[in-house]
């Protein structure tokens, strides 16, 4: 343990006071106290005492969901877990969590911590926080403002993971599976599915060629983007062998995992493949952490994906689904579009994907929509797409490029007006796909969709 300096003690005291003040004022104290502490004592994270076991979760997509799953299962089994769930996933957020989880003298009050770590913040956090387990869900393209491209993020994380951290990595992801090759690692994967392909149908595939000889890779199967199992036909490069191989059975809603020569079966908490990856990630971590399959099974039976990201409700026979589609993130949106495409029945879709912050005084950088697979919304079963928001003209052009007939497209500047344009004629499902920070507005839109369905029923009676 690093010796605590007077500067550290003072910064801990002041940041603790700030935290209590914020709480007294009813404010969220998840960021500022940590920011203040690091400002006053730059190696604050290095000096504050940490819990005995630390689990860090990073990656482009799914890290919040995976963190929540891990946290829920551990809590379910009596662990008192320090976490940054309520706040920020950058260094200030982690510092705030540690302040909240320590005594006034800086001693850790809890024995286990689960931290979600922003990928770009890795180099500000890992020099001070030595995780016992470091999980990376996947690495994909993300916001071009911050994350640029996967190679940039890969280099940051790979150069930051402490050498002693036991990595939990996705063997189906040829990018993140190569992180920090010297570290101890456990790989997970999902075995070949009937729906797998031999060629990528997504716009983005950031692993088209062998990193060693630049030959085009061959795929035993490809699931989406660069997720799958590949090999180079001319050199020895290939997907790494997996330690936890998951076989999915959507009919019985179960997943059977083969690990260390034994099979274990768990309930599937979601029917979507990307959330299933999140679940397998959490299971692998929890098994390596030391929980038994019975413990994990019992907890997973009670789990649901957080309501703010997904909800489903049926009104007069029409299912209304809200689904977060993280704007500026082409992979997350493509996965959601693919999910909508694969859902059965006649569908209508409301898009509300504008960046809520760029609306205020700037103009959203729209490059990402040309990386996202809007082509998945070009389906005979989707008979109307209502595009809402100030960028609706951009989305309309993108959907036309995707082959969607213009007759199916309706634009409206205000999201709340979108339900007015539903046809509800033979519609079995209405999907409301909303940006991360538009969850509350999506709920208002959902209420209006419910009203529209009720009104239509009343007028038909």
């Amino acid at each position, binding site marked *: 343990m690093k010796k605590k300096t007077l500067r550290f003690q003072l910064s801990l005291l002041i940041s603790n006071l700030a935290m209590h003040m914020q709480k007294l004022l009813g404010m969220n104290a998840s960021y500022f106290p940590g920011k203040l502490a690091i400002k006053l004592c730059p190696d604050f994270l290095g000096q504050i005492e940490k819990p005995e076991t630390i689990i860090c979760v990073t990656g482009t997509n799914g890290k919040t969901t995976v963190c929540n799953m891990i946290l829920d299962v551990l809590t379910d089994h009596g662990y008192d877990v320090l976490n940054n769930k309520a706040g920020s996933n950058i260094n200030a957020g982690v510092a705030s969590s540690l302040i909240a989880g320590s005594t006034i003298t800086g001693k850790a009050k809890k024995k286990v911590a689960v931290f979600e770590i922003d990928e770009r913040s890795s180099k500000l956090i890992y020099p001070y926080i030595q995780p016992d387990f470091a999980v990376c869900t996947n690495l994909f393209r993300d916001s071009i403002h911050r994350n640029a491209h996967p190679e940039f993020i890969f280099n940051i994380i790979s150069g930051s993971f402490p050498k002693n951290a036991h990595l939990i990595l996705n063997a189906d992801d040829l990018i993140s599976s190569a992180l920090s090759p010297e570290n101890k690692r456990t790989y997970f994967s999902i075995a070949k599915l009937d729906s797998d392909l031999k060629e990528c149908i997504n716009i983005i595939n950031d692993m088209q060629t062998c990193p060693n000889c630049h030959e085009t890779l061959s795929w035993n199967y490809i699931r989406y983007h660069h997720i799958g199992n590949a090999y180079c036909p001319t050199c020895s490069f290939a997907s790494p062998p997996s330690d936890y191989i998951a076989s999915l059975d959507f009919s019985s809603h179960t997943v059977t995992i083969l690990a260390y020569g034994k099979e274990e079966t768990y309930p599937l908490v979601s029917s979507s493949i990307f959330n299933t990856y999140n679940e397998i990630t959490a299971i692998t971590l929890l098994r390596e952490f030391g929980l038994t399959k019975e413990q994990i099974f019992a907890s997973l039976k009670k789990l649901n994906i957080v309501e703010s990201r997904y909800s489903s409700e049926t009104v007069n026979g029409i299912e209304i689904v809200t689904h977060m589609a993280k704007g500026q993130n082409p992979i997350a949106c493509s996965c959601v579009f693919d999910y909508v495409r694969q859902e059965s029945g006649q569908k209508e879709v409301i898009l509300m994907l504008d960046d809520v912050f760029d609306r205020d005084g700037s*103009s959203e950088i729209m490059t990402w929509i040309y990386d996202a697979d809007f082509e998945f919304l070009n389906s005979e079963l989707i008979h109307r797409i209502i595009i809402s928001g100030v960028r609706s003209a*951009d989305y309309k052009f993108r959907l036309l490029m995707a082959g969607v007939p213009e007759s199916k497209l309706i634009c409206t500047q205000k999201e709340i007006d979108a339900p007015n344009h539903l046809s509800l004629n033979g519609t079995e499902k209405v999907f409301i796909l909303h940006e991360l920070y538009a969850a509350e507005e999506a709920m208002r839109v959902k209420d209006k969709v419910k009203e529209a369905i009720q009104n239509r029923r009343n007028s038909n009676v």
Partner: protein
Amino acid sequence: MSEIKIEVLYSEYANLFGDLMNIHYLGKCIPQARIIYTGLNDIPAFTKETVSMIYMGPMTEHQQELVIQALLPYKEQIQNCIANNTVFLLTGNAMETFEAYIENENGSRIMGLNLFPTYAKRDMFHRYNSLILGEYQGITLVGFKAQFSHSYGDNYHCYFYKVLRGDGLYPGSQLEGLHKNNFFGTYTVGPFLVENPLFTKHLIKLMGISNPVLAFESSIMEAYRKRLEEFQNPKLRFH
């Protein structure tokens, strides 16, 4: 009119920020065009036959180095293509591969094709994001920039367009990109031709089509006008 051939260089790498939509859109606008995708291990088509246009999009920093190595053997043919008025469009940091060199933060240099007198400097610790408004031959251009590097040196005699708002080749520069004959290079990403339908018409004319008709013209013009209106608002933040 001779066959229109558009060669896309190294699309397995040079495809960041949705910029391949430049080509997909050209393909919709010129359905008769033959689009040739050349991979890193392939011999470029422009070395074997006449092509109407050569396109390359943004890529990672490591991939820039691979691309420079792949193109160096064909430097003379590339010079000839530029001299013979072949249309070139290089977007994002693809443009840097044609410059003198790319300098890393530690001062080390990756020598480029040296077809333009400018050079690029990387700063991987600072991401530069901005909107840009400019003017080229009476066409008002809009665009986005998202990059780690800027180019420096004198592009006064070879700039692509004048900057009305935002930054050009480097912060403070009012001259964006590189231009020589029918060669156009710009840091603007996300696809430049989709953002600028009037320039797209100009580019298609350069390929020999006298009265081009744009695909989804009314929709793309509506999106362009909307963005232009925003970008011309003096209150709009560009950074």
